[in-house]
């Protein structure tokens, strides 16, 4: 099985978001996108069963190398860093076009993506890359079984779960729940540094949208704690609901 995993480095959302102008402040903490971590893990699971090779691919600035190293530590065999200086955040089509261009030069049976990135909150790239290649995409899978060219996957849909069968080549995007992440032991993190990591400079010429504004939502919430015994607390809360007029109907 030739497996490609597309990953992205994102700001750590456990920390406060810092913005510089219209982009994320570079002094923020960055991590491998959490769902991409499940994508790489799933690739490792498939490889363990069927053999093959895992190439992990990212598009991003210099710092995105850290995300690749983490994937190599998780079990990817090779990494390719498509290095950009202009971050094409929020322009999913631009990213997909460049990823597809590179993937075209690589042999593959399966491409994994994370279900969506925590920064853009779109989940477009997997679907877009599949469409560019004209191959099936099963987004947001929570189960995957592969046997002799036949794949059965369970995906989350709007009102439930759907089990589908499809042929390869195909793209899958991974949702939380598809696998458990093991803790990365230090030796693996060290070994990762010795695995092949190719850097290729790319220029994102073709843009489909531009950022006009990026604003952090102010925390306007009062955070008021209601005092008193439970009866008094509930009474005050009901007063507030009444004032808001939602109890009318």
């Amino acid at each position: 099985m030739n497996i490609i995993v597309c990953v992205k480095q994102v700001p750590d959302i456990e920390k406060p978001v810092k913005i510089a102008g219209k982009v994320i402040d570079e002094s923020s903490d960055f991590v491998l996108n959490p769902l991409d971590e499940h994508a790489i893990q799933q690739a490792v699971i498939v490889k363990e069963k069927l053999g093959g090779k895992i190439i992990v691919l990212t598009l991003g600035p210099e710092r995105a190398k850290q995300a690749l190293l983490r994937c190599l530590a998780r079990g990817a065999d090779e990494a390719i860093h498509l290095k950009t200086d202009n971050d094409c955040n929020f322009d999913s089509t631009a990213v997909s076009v460049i990823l597809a261009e590179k993937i075209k030069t690589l042999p593959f049976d399966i491409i994994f993506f994370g279900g969506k990135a925590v920064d853009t909150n779109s989940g477009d790239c997997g679907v877009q890359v599949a469409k560019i290649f004209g191959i099936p995409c099963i987004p947001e899978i929570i189960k995957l079984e592969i046997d002799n060219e036949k794949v059965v996957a369970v995906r989350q849909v709007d009102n439930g779960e759907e089990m589908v069968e499809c042929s390869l080549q195909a793209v899958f995007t991974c949702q939380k729940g598809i696998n458990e992440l093991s803790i990365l032991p230090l030796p693996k993190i060290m070994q990762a540094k010795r695995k092949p990591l190719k850097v290729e400079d790319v220029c994102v010429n073709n843009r489909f949208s531009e950022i006009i504004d990026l604003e952090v939502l102010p925390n306007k919430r009062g955070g008021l704690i209601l005092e008193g015994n439970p009866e008094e607390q509930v009474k005050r809360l009901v007063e507030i609901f009444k004032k808001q007029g939602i109890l009318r109907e």
Partner: protein
Amino acid sequence: MENIFVFIELESGAITKSGIEVLGKARELADKYSKQVVGLVLGNDFNNFAGLLDCLARLGADEFLLAESDKFTDYNSEIYGKIICGEIEKLKPQIVLLGSSKIGKELAAQISAKFLSCCFQDCVDIDIEGDFLKAKRLVLAGKAFVTLKSKCSQFQVATLRQGIFQPKIIGKDAEITRMDVPADLVSRIIRKEFTGRTSGKVSLLGAKIIVSGGRGMKSGENFKILEELADVFGGAVGASRGAVDLEFRVFDDQVGLTGKTVSPQIYIACGISGAPQHLAGITQAKFIVAINKDSGAPIFKAADMGIVGDLFEIVPLLTKSLKNLKGEK
């Protein structure tokens, strides 16, 4: 005149609430900037849903295309994508709008890849500036808004978040045209099984009031007290990932980063600690109430109003006083 193309999703033969909202917004933009609205509906056996066509006709489109085939009974991303992209290719619309359901988002991504255009998902606001679509979306785990502007003059794709845009009823009936559907529709994706999984009665998306429970609920049975509270308002019941992982609730009820992003008037979080991944789903709630026994729980910082206490005591009390209040009226 330039076209705004709208894909309308059906659910059990009925037009979805989100579909009505998207049509409403499309009409508003069309009136403002003199454009035409063309809607596309895929379904099976429209004659069995006669009411549907009458209802559709006045929701804002100038024209409706109906595509009928037994292949459309269940959603198939390849087949739907092929038909929709085929129509878009013929019509060459300036703008393509869909609802931001999982289906809508997936189709939007396909369309943008096929026609190499922008793709704005789950927008809370859109407008047109010159030839270009401008969209506002929630990003960075619900912590920021980004405003984006398209650089493409055609096929500009956006999906609209549910519960934000206003439906419209218009006085003139839309023209309804039946499309020819190719007979040889095949897909490499085959549906084997479907498990419907809504345990709550009211849908979280678009709900005005949501009562959510976390790990602090201790069991699935205990969610009954949240259902009773939600019932008083006709609201919906949600859950944290913690509660879903413990199988207190099904995934469909999950609110947050990997679950649903909701925008109710009131969100009541019971026994939820307030992890950033949970908060990511509720930043658009108008008013957040937290009930938690740990005064140090981060949920209190993210809430408008908090009660430090045992939810098993507070929630039934709250339900009772709200019921009494209703009874008085």
